[in-house]
């Protein structure tokens, strides 16, 4: 029924330590934000990397994902895949211009075409 008290006390210590680490990382996140990073992309990357590290700790230690069962892992892997699909693909449909001339290119071409015609 109940876990061995010594093991649970060790776990509680771990939870406290992880909680402290999460505090530290949060402070780092806010601190990094105050330093104005050169590019937006870099800022986003740093923020997401730190957030992912924090999230991983919460998931692995607090949510006991570090020793869960196959069905849970399987369901979560599937979810992560579809989560990535949901984040990525819609944005690719509005930002993928490979093979399709952008509106600027088209209007530039049209303007050049008009200028040519006017000269004739």
């Amino acid at each position, binding site marked *: 029924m109940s876990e061995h008290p010594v093991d649970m006390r060790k776990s509680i210590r771990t939870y*406290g330590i992880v909680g402290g680490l999460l505090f530290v990382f949060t402070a780092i996140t806010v601190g990094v934000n105050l330093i104005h990073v050169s590019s937006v992309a870099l800022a986003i990357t740093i923020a997401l990397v730190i957030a992912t590290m924090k999230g991983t700790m919460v998931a692995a230690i607090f949510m006991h994902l570090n020793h869960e069962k196959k069905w849970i892992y399987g*369901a979560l892997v599937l979810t*992560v895949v579809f989560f990535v699909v949901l984040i990525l693909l819609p944005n690719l449909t509005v930002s993928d211009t490979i093979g399709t001339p952008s509106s600027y290119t088209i209007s530039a071409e049209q303007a050049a075409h008009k200028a040519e015609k006017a000269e004739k």
Partner: protein
Amino acid sequence: MEIPYTVEPRPDSGLANGKLGIWLFLASEVMLFGALFSTYILLRVGAVEWPHGELSVKLGAINTFILIASSVTMVVAWAKLKMNEFSKGRLYIIVTAVLALVFLVNKYFEYADHFSRGEGPWHSTFLAIYFTLTGLHGLHILGGIVVMAYLAGPGAGLWKKNPDQFTNRVEYTGLYWHFVDLVWIFLFPVLYLL
């Protein structure tokens, strides 16, 4: 007629019913918040300009610390119950709920501040997605508080009848709660800092 594996795990899956159930529910929640994050990205990428500095980083950071602390107290509550220390466990559940309430109070101040200037979700795309994301997250916090109140209050009677089942319920609530914390861990930098 009893449903098997409500408390003891099924040998081949290694799981009790509720454990699998709550994780599946959390999987669906990942997709729910995922859709909103996707919305955020699509709208921001398509925006000519995106506001900065409109939110109180201080309040957001404080709330982040509060929620992390509440995650610690929640998992400790479960650990105490596993060690058969019912009153300690119950106390930690109450502390978690109180921390959650403080989070909501802070949120109320944040929202009230915006609304007093007439800046509701209608004001800009940024505020629209901010209010939606934090609002939905806040509703999840509220739901968590309700469940915790039940477990610490009327639901605590189950400890006498079936301590393992009660402990499992606390564990599942904890999983939900950690997920809510997880969402905020991403929400905070995305909305407040970037």
